[in-house]
């Protein structure tokens, strides 16, 4: 591919490097990261403000807002995590006939691998 590279491609690649090196040094600067952080914070504040306004309006009509749905999602996730943990504990009990948490009770330097579950 390097052999016989057409002029247009060579020009694009050189141009990209000429511009790219400057852009790369800019995006690696402290100023860039400070700007990204500020922009992220501003966006988060803006989203919060809009959500808070729309939430009031939606609640007025007895409708769920995005924040309510997120709250329910988080609650559901916690519940799913709990179920998954219980499922794993049962699987572990079935696999090795002992409580899986007992393995970690003794503060030892190294541990013994458990069987597959």
């Amino acid at each position, binding site marked *: 591919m390097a052999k016989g590279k057409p002029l247009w491609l060579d020009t694009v690649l050189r141009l990209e490097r000429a511009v790219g090196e400057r852009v790369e040094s800019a995006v690696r600067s402290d100023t860039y990261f400070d700007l990204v952080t500020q922009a992220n914070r501003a966006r988060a504040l803006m989203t919060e403000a809009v959500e808070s306004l729309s939430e009031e309006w939606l609640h007025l009509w007895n409708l769920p807002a995005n924040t309510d749905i997120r709250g329910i999602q988080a609650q559901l996730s916690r519940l799913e995590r709990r179920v998954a943990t219980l499922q794993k504990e049962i699987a572990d009990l079935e696999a090795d006939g002992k409580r899986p948490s007992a393995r970690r009770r003794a503060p030892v330097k*190294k541990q013994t691998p458990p069987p597959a579950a």
Partner: protein
Amino acid sequence: MTPAAISGDLVSRVNREVERSLLRARNGVRYVTTRPNVGATPKDVVWKRDKAELWRYRSDVPIRYDPPLVIVHSLVSRSYIFDLRPGSSTVEFLLGQGLDVFMLDFGIPDELDADNTLETYVDEYLPRAIAAVQAETGVDEVTVAGYCLGGVLAALYAAGYEDAPVRNLMLWAAPFDFGQMGVMVAAVRDGRLDADELIDHTGNVPADALYSGFFMQAPTKQVAQYATLLENLWNDEFVDGYQAMAQWSREQVPFPGAVFRQIVDDIVRRNVLMTGRLRLGERVIQLAHVEANVLNAFAENDNVVPVTATEPASQLVGDPARRTELRLTGGHVTFAAGRHAFKHTLPALTDWTIAHSDELKPPKER
């Protein structure tokens, strides 16, 4: 050159360009309308827990070496990088060398995985997955190859368990010195990027944030890549490779929030891996306690995990008498993609693996 020869040459060049233009048009349509055939090597799921899965790859080539090889993938990308496409796949290459290949894939995290910590991977998934390999193959030991952050997890597992059945441990571009990990990690370390602000409502760092981080390392590079693609669009082989690689680069996975915070606090800010010790759960793991043969393989032009971040593992992990260092040319994906991978990297890695394995006589059918 005679005028007839010049005109003949011109005609053949015009013909070639017309032919290539037609192929470019055809491949261009194919590029935007199809998805690459990634992860195509046949495999069986032999173990599963939460979203973590252990795959055993199938092949017609008999197994010629013990112990089996388990690849532990990273937490920040998709594992199909090691099985990118038929004819250009690390897994296919290793199977062809007579190795029994397994892959530990951690899946795509969501809200349910937000509480995953380093302990989840090191104490919950890895020991069980390795035990599943033993149960599946009937062997006592395994060779573990950890890629990128998967290398850190594999090292912590091998060091943290006295009876870890790891005969060989390969670290492929595994970061240990987080003080050398580049500007984005430095920005998180110095507090210029707040770790908590990177975590979204699911409790994870979204895949988009990770993609943006990688993309912003060289924002204009894509222009050069697209121009090179346009020039080579007539070449089926090039297009297939480009399409698979481009998809992999775009398809980052969310990073579980709890493990992200843990990595930022302990591994990035305090750079504890460089002390050779890491507190995990109720114990302190010492990297020097790895009893396996250790190969630290890293690439000189890796701009994701620079050499300065990977090189210290050669002084930290395992017994000094059993350590080997393999310095490769190429970048972060030289373990899986590119002509160099199949000509130099993978043969070198296979040679080391075979030298530290037992040859099966006769070979075992899969």
